[in-house]
């Protein structure tokens, strides 16, 4: 019996996002606009799933991508570290109008909660946030004389991320500081969807340099518009 060749490549953004349902929790990669999968987010807006919980470092910049998704009214809650920025006017208005729920998480705790979910860890004690408003109501413990607060894993139904190159098995490399949350988010979602500006043949990515092994990736979409 001949095997079927594995390919995680989807022909379109819309096809890659088609099964996202109302109420889904979706991680979106990027730090500010670096690494933000803008075309996947545009696709999510077209798709129209509502009542979403979004996990991102920020809460949108300017009038594109995540900011536009928030403007669409499809986001019920955002979990992030740094919503308020000079160009976060859409989030600011939505939040002040009481139309979006906000959970602020220290940035390192956000990354580690995502990492923990992807690595099968049931939570962890961290010194970050101990004694602060963001640790209120959470379990604490003193370990070897230092105070820690318990943080739980954070998982998602989908992760939407952007990488620099992918092959058909979903092996990924990233570019510069656009890597940021991509590698940990890819591990923590039931379905990870990646946009890349170029797909390469198997063997063209140096195995020593693959940052996200394909096991963590389910769907790859080519977004050629970025000239690189």
């Amino acid at each position, binding site marked *: 019996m001949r095997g079927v060749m594995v390919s995680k490549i989807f022909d379109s953004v819309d096809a890659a996002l088609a099964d996202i349902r109302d109420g889904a929790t979706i991680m979106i990669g990027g*730090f*500010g*606009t*670096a*690494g933000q999968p803008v075309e996947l987010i545009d696709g999510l807006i077209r798709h129209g799933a509502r009542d979403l919980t979004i996990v991102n*470092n920020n809460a949108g*910049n300017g009038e594109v991508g995540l900011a536009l998704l928030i403007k669409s009214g499809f986001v019920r809650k955002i979990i992030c*570290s*740094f*919503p*308020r*920025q000079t160009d976060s006017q859409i989030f*600011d208005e939505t*939040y*002040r109008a009481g139309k979006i729920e*906000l959970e*602020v*998480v*220290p*940035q*390192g*705790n*956000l*990354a*580690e909660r*995502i*990492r923990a979910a992807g690595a099968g860890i049931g939570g962890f004690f*961290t*010194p*970050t*946030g*101990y*004694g*602060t*408003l*963001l640790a209120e109501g959470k379990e604490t413990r003193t370990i070897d004389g230092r*105070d820690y607060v318990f943080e739980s894993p954070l998982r998602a139904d989908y992760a939407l991320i952007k990488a620099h190159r992918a092959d058909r098995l979903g092996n990924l490399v*990233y*570019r*510069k*500081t*656009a*890597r*940021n*949350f*991509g*590698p*940990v988010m890819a591990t923590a979602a039931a379905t990870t969807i990646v946009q890349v500006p170029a797909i390469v043949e198997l063997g063209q990515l140096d195995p020593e340099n693959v*940052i996200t092994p394909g096991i963590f990736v389910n769907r790859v979409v080519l977004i050629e518009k970025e000239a690189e």
Partner: protein
Amino acid sequence: MSTAAPLSRAEMAQRVAADIPPGSYVNLGIGIPTSVSNYLTAEQDVILHTENGLLGMGPEAHGDEIDDDLINAGKIPVTEAIGASYFHHADSFGMMRGGHLDIAVLGAFQVSITGDLANWHTGEPGAIPAVGGAMDLAVGAKNVFVMMELTTKKGQPKLVEALTYPVTGLGCVTRVYTEVAVFDIDRTTGVSVTELFGPTTVDDLRTLTNLPLTDATGKG
């Protein structure tokens, strides 16, 4: 460094830069701390960390150097230094939390005499809270240097007995640079004034802050 007048912000940055030991791994917070990098010398060989995934951050990028994939924690385009490395967010904050960074230089609303830091949230009603990496930096670096004006615009001291602003980290600040003095904070021996700028005396600082400051300027 003894000066006739209080330090300007640029001089404060210069003063902090001069105190960073050669070969240190350093994170410079958003705002005034970022300007410390302008005064680091090649001989110091300081390696700058930016929490969005780069060790070996170079100067701000201009013109053709600007690359949307290469920014700092303040989302400003930067360059990479020779010998730089990239990593994902969990590794980046592991570097911090794991005590691998030598120094973090941060701004502050208030610092307490036991080194508690407030710099993330004014606590005002209606303010949208945004923490970013502030709490991670506060607890993670081996030394946390704060750069701030000694008083608010209304003249209230920002070095205080106990914080009135929301806490960022407890007992984490080791040194405070202001325009009139440098303060060292030791959790057992308290706060000492190690340097003065301009006409201010240690007694003036005691009166202003109402704190039991030790004179360690070598002149008292």
